[in-house]
């Protein structure tokens, strides 16, 4: 069962965006002065790649098969290894180039970015068969908000830049991870809305 479910995934999108993320992150590793700008963009791209893992063009057929959403989502979650591996590759390249990044916090940010993209896709998947574009865009805009609106950066940091003041990104990512786990658990059980809202009066 896992094979066909995985084969039907939007692999060109996941692999393509992960590839672009590796190139962007690789440039960050090659030019350390640009790393603090390029690494957050690289991680945002990986979050977008994660959002495409649940795309199902044949959802009208697939959604009525006996394989439930929990099992299908669990199998599709294996595809998250692609963006995670891409992120790990970029971090390895940065470490080999001697970049002084807080590696534990960077790893947590990578996991948080990818899980956020996946959680957003899970939530949007309850409404549409191809949540990638919508969820990916929403997640990228949220992740890039500190760069787009400098006032946001005073309160929230999504990437652990070395030596920067302000709040730690770790707190943000631990909270995001917890919220994502809850959102995924609720959405794959088909409860996109509270019970009182889904009932017809």
């Amino acid at each position, binding site marked *: 069962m896992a094979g066909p479910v995985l084969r039907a995934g939007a692999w*060109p*999108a996941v692999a*393509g*965006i992960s590839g*672009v993320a590796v190139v*962007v992150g690789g*440039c960050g590793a090659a*030019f350390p*002065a*640009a790393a603090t*700008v*390029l690494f957050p*963009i690289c991680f*945002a*791209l990986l979050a*977008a790649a994660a959002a*495409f893992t649940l795309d199902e063009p044949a959802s009208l057929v697939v959604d009525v098969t006996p394989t439930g959403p929990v099992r299908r989502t669990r199998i599709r979650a294996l595809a998250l290894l692609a963006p995670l591996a891409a992120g790990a590759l970029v971090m390895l390249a940065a470490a080999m180039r001697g970049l002084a990044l807080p590696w534990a916090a960077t790893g947590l940010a990578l996991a948080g970015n990818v899980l956020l993209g996946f959680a957003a896709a899970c939530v949007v998947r309850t409404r549409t068969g*191809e949540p*990638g*574009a919508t969820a*990916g*865009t929403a997640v*990228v805009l949220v992740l*890039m908000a500190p760069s*787009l*609106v400098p006032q946001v950066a005073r309160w929230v940091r999504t990437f652990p830049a070395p030596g920067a003041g302000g709040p730690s990104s770790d707190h943000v990512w631990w909270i995001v991870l917890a919220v994502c786990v809850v959102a995924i658990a609720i959405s794959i059980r088909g409860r996109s809305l509270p019970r009182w809202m889904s009932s017809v009066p």
Partner: protein
Amino acid sequence: MTTALAPARPQTGVGRTTFVALAAREMRRFVVNPVFLFAVVITAWWTWAGRGTAVADIGLVNAFTAIFLGGFGMMATFWLTRSMRASDPVVGVTPVTLPARTAALCAVAIVPFGCGCLALIAFLHFHSASDPAYGAFSPSARIAVVAGQIVVPSLGGPLLGVALGRWVRFPGAALVLFLVLWSWVSLVTVVSGSHPDSAPVAVLRLFAGFTFFALHSDAGGVTAWRGSPWFFLGWQLALCAIAVLVALLRGAEGRVRTRIIRALAIAGVAALVMLVLAAAGGFTHPVTA
């Protein structure tokens, strides 16, 4: 006595009326697009919030206008263009050709271009062109710098979105391109900071739809980099023309296709010439003022 009358060309009038109607329709769809509305609101807020505050260099302020009106405008027109794909079986049998519909979509870029013009006027009102934050450029070059950083990206971004929407099927293409362009501009700016005298680095820095011409120096003052702002404007406008022509090429047939390809070649050559002139003109070395 008989009078010979030249035959009227009713098709031209009908075609123009159809185009105006289509363009108005697309413009109505565009102005209510939530992404574009968000971009306009945040650009207005950003411009208003920056009034009266001293800036280290103008590029850091203008980059946000380019990101919102240009980058977000690109995503909005990409989705606007793609949204018609689902109705292609119906729209495809109407007597309007695909290039005509594409031209109507391209006309939508007038709206963000107008917003960019307003943002430029507001910027010049709040940050006078005699401000030292502009760097060592002449008064006319300063206007060219801000026009190239605010107005032309507001036009080029949405046009690029239409071209992308016509040719690329992947729904996340605009988002990925937006991040790639952002990465490119960031990367070449950082490299220019460390190699300000290098001519190849200057060409790389100008090889984009948006570029910084001056940056605040850590030692004090503003360092103006190599390159001619006026020729860079020409390069940007040539890129806009290329985006329109590439978008129109989709679905074009016969003589129209031949003419578009010919115009594309001319625009490509013009863009190349402008890029070379932009890199060769202006200051030949960085100037800190």
